[in-house]
């Protein structure tokens, strides 16, 4: 088919150029730096060795960086008893200490919302800045909110660099080396769970937790996003997250969703359970329940 003597078929030259460009860009991408999660194991180990040396030097103590992968047959889930939480914020500060969050500017992965009993779970009337002499306050209940580790996470879908994804054990993680700080994920998250390092994070060396994981609490830099990882450095070693162990009223529960004898399954099967913003179809792995 020809119009005005110009062929609408791609010419052989054009085809060759397109094919060569595609091949070249594919080769360049494949040869470039790998995301850590898809790097070969030995390359990951080498990268982690470098990290350990770098962090040990910068923080003045022996820092270990774990690369523990997901445990087969495990999918983590979390449950929080709204009827017990008294809003004391012990979990917030345990999380900050465990996960090396910046003290100044302040970053806190857990935000405890104070809500009025008359209004129920309603974020438009929630207050995170309550500061009475004693908690719980009359007529209030408390809903701590962190990353919900959604099964259908809006945040990972919008990431232009693939720097955030869901691990096979259900933990939504961030590769801080691939995050470009565009903050699309923060806009996409309906729970306000992601936090941005507007400045170089500051943590006193003596408060720095040297037990880290490369997808979790290793030091972050200015310009990257961070969030709760279910304490990946602890939970992949079989331990409870720091917030579970510190809660003075035992409101926080954690376990394996695929183990029918776990606390989490007991709660889902026996208690009144809700998830936040269910209508958004994010399918959180973080359940709120009423034990009483």
């Amino acid at each position, binding site marked *: 088919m020809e119009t005005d003597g110009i062929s609408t078929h791609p010419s052989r030259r054009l085809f060759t150029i397109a094919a060569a460009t595609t091949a070249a860009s594919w080769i360049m991408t494949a040869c470039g730096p790998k995301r850590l999660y898809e790097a070969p194991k030995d390359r990951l180990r080498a990268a982690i060795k470098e990290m350990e040396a770098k962090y040990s030097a910068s923080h003045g103590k022996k820092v270990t960086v774990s690369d523990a992968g997901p445990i087969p047959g495990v999918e983590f889930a979390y449950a929080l008893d709204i009827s017990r939480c008294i809003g004391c914020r012990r979990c917030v500060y345990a999380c900050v200490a465990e996960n090396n969050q910046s003290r100044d500017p302040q970053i806190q992965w857990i935000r405890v919302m104070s809500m009025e009993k008359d209004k129920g779970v309603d974020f438009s009337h929630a207050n995170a800045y309550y500061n009475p002499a004693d908690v719980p306050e009359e007529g209030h209940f408390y809903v701590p909110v962190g990353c919900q580790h959604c099964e259908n996470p809006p945040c990972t879908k919008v990431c232009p660099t693939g720097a955030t994804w869901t691990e096979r054990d259900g933990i939504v993680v961030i590769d801080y080396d691939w995050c470009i700080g565009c903050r699309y994920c923060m806009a996409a998250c309906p729970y306000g769970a992601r936090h941005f390092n507007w400045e170089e994070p500051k943590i006193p060396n003596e408060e720095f937790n040297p037990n880290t994981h490369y997808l979790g609490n290793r030091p972050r830099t200015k310009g990257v996003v961070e969030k709760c990882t279910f304490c990946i450095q602890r939970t992949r070693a079989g331990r409870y997250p720091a917030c*579970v162990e510190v809660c003075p009223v035992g409101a926080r529960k954690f376990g394996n969703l695929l183990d029918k004898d776990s606390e989490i399954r007991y*709660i889902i099967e026996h208690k009144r359970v809700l998830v936040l913003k269910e209508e958004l179809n994010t399918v959180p792995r973080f359940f709120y329940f009423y034990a009483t």
Partner: protein
Amino acid sequence: MRNPSHDRKGVVFMRLFALGVLAGGVVLAVGASLAGDGAKPPSPPSETTAKIAPERLDVPAPPFSDGIFPCSNCHAGMPVDRTRRNLEAMHTDIVLKHDETHRWCLDCHDANNRDFLHLASGERVPFEESYRVCGQCHGEKLRDWRAGVHGRRTGNWNGAKGYLLCANCHNPHQPRFHALAPKPAPRPPSRTMQ
């Protein structure tokens, strides 16, 4: 692999199941070796052992006041007065706010051996098993506590868990939680960077 919805079941689940049975067996064995005269014999290991905890659990020491235990140090030679009354000579620091209209000391403390508690049936229970006394009225809490849902847990989500006795958190004489001072509120975001 990004999609978490496959590769979950199968071999790994069987392995986990075997691990659970094994862990249940170990807990039972420990329970059996510790079990005193009052404890029920543990049931044979089964797939539900992880959920139904044995009678003796690994719990910390009961929170006695300093120098108060063993109670028989003072009570051994004393005559037993079963009449309900206000204590004036001793234990005046204990204020009972726990169904005090219906209960008093000897409903839980054993009159014949003060180093023990007792159930409604009269069965003596050591202080380390005080949850059995509490569970007579608070059965659903005891059930949740055994399942790991009531109370704080420490340790491992898939292994040894640290339990606490009811009395480690609740004062048995005044079980209601007291208000706590909260940790500092987060700093509100500022529009200008410092």
